[in-house]
């Protein structure tokens, strides 16, 4: 996994996501979720290709159930783009990289 990806927990979620100056893409995942494994290499690549424009972060929903419930995570993988502490875009399911970039294009500029 890319070292540029931020590992989230209850202790740093506010600082790294809600108070972040740049847009943050959060991957809600779990170890038992096979499609989540497909998303990982895509995020690694996005973290390299869009460094400085967007922050990429991962949150394990098993270890952080309260945050998952608060954000209405009912299927994983779910990717949520946060800007200024607000949810801007939600992508549910494992999508191809091209599609992810297309959906997130307004925040990747």
């Amino acid at each position: 996994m890319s070292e540029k990806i931020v590992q989230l927990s209850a202790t740093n979620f506010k600082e790294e996501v809600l108070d972040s100056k740049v847009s943050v893409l959060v991957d809600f995942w779990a170890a038992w979720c096979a499609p989540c494994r497909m998303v990982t290499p895509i995020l690694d690549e996005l973290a390299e290709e869009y460094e400085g424009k967007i922050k990429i972060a991962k949150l394990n929903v098993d270890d952080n159930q309260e945050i998952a419930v608060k954000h209405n995570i009912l299927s994983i993988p779910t990717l949520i783009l946060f800007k200024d502490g607000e949810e801007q875009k939600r992508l549910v399911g494992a999508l191809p990289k091209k599609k992810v970039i297309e959906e997130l294009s307004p925040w990747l500029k």
Partner: protein
Amino acid sequence: MERINDIIIVGGGPAGLTAGLYAARARLKTLLLEGEVLGGQAATTELVENYPGFPDGISGPELMERIERQARFFGLEISAPSMATSIKIKGEAKEIAVEGTKYPAKAVIIATGARPKKLNVPGERELQGRGVSYCATCDGALFKGKKLLVIGGGDAAMEEVLFLTKFARSILVVHRRDELRAAKILQERVFDNKKVGFVWDSQILRILGESRVEGAIVRNKKSGEEREIKTDGIFVYIGTEPNTTFLGNLLKLDREGYIVTDENMMTSIPGIFAAGDVRCNPLKQISVAVGEGATAAISAQKYIEGHLK
């Protein structure tokens, strides 16, 4: 120039991976294209307890990971995610297209499997991933302490009900008939479970909710009565349909869209084979898919060597 592939396998579930294992072990240059995640539907099964050789059961992902490892050991090349979008016949050769890239091969094995059928009711598409799910093992853990509906009465539905009882507070099974079709051993387990209730002779008319599922309108088919049931999530298991859209009308299909083959797994076009859930077989099981994958691989070998027309 690189040698063209002897065999291209489309689909990386039990049938495709086993075909790949046999083909690669037969020293045929073989490429497997998987459109989504390797392992197919089997990889979304929590516990497989009827696959021979595993008396204590084995998790679906682990079984599939083992078959993948075994296939790669013999030299199977795998590309994923690579979604095949069409197959063309070029004289003796076949050509598979994946988003603009073309892969020629001497023979093709289609093992694209099947996907869950949708209810086709208002609210279903809008709320998919927001409480509507087709995969309890994928999403079940996100419904701890919640009230759920499960739609269906077959083996898959009851297996998922039993899995969901680990998380949910209560589950209502909505079934269009007044008895279950599922295997007796599964029926015994669900009837014994105090968390599970039944709504017989009923179907879903509409799924309710704005940003997440809040309820459903259910109609009793005998009385005609309609009522609203409050729920946090709806898991749908009303059967599967084959993944054959990318084929167009290239191959002969049965009435429900499954691929018709002979006993060698050869389709209506020589050199194109089919195996597993995508084929018109009477039993959708990992053990069946594995056997068909092996047969398809050896038939494809015979075809390439000119022994099978």
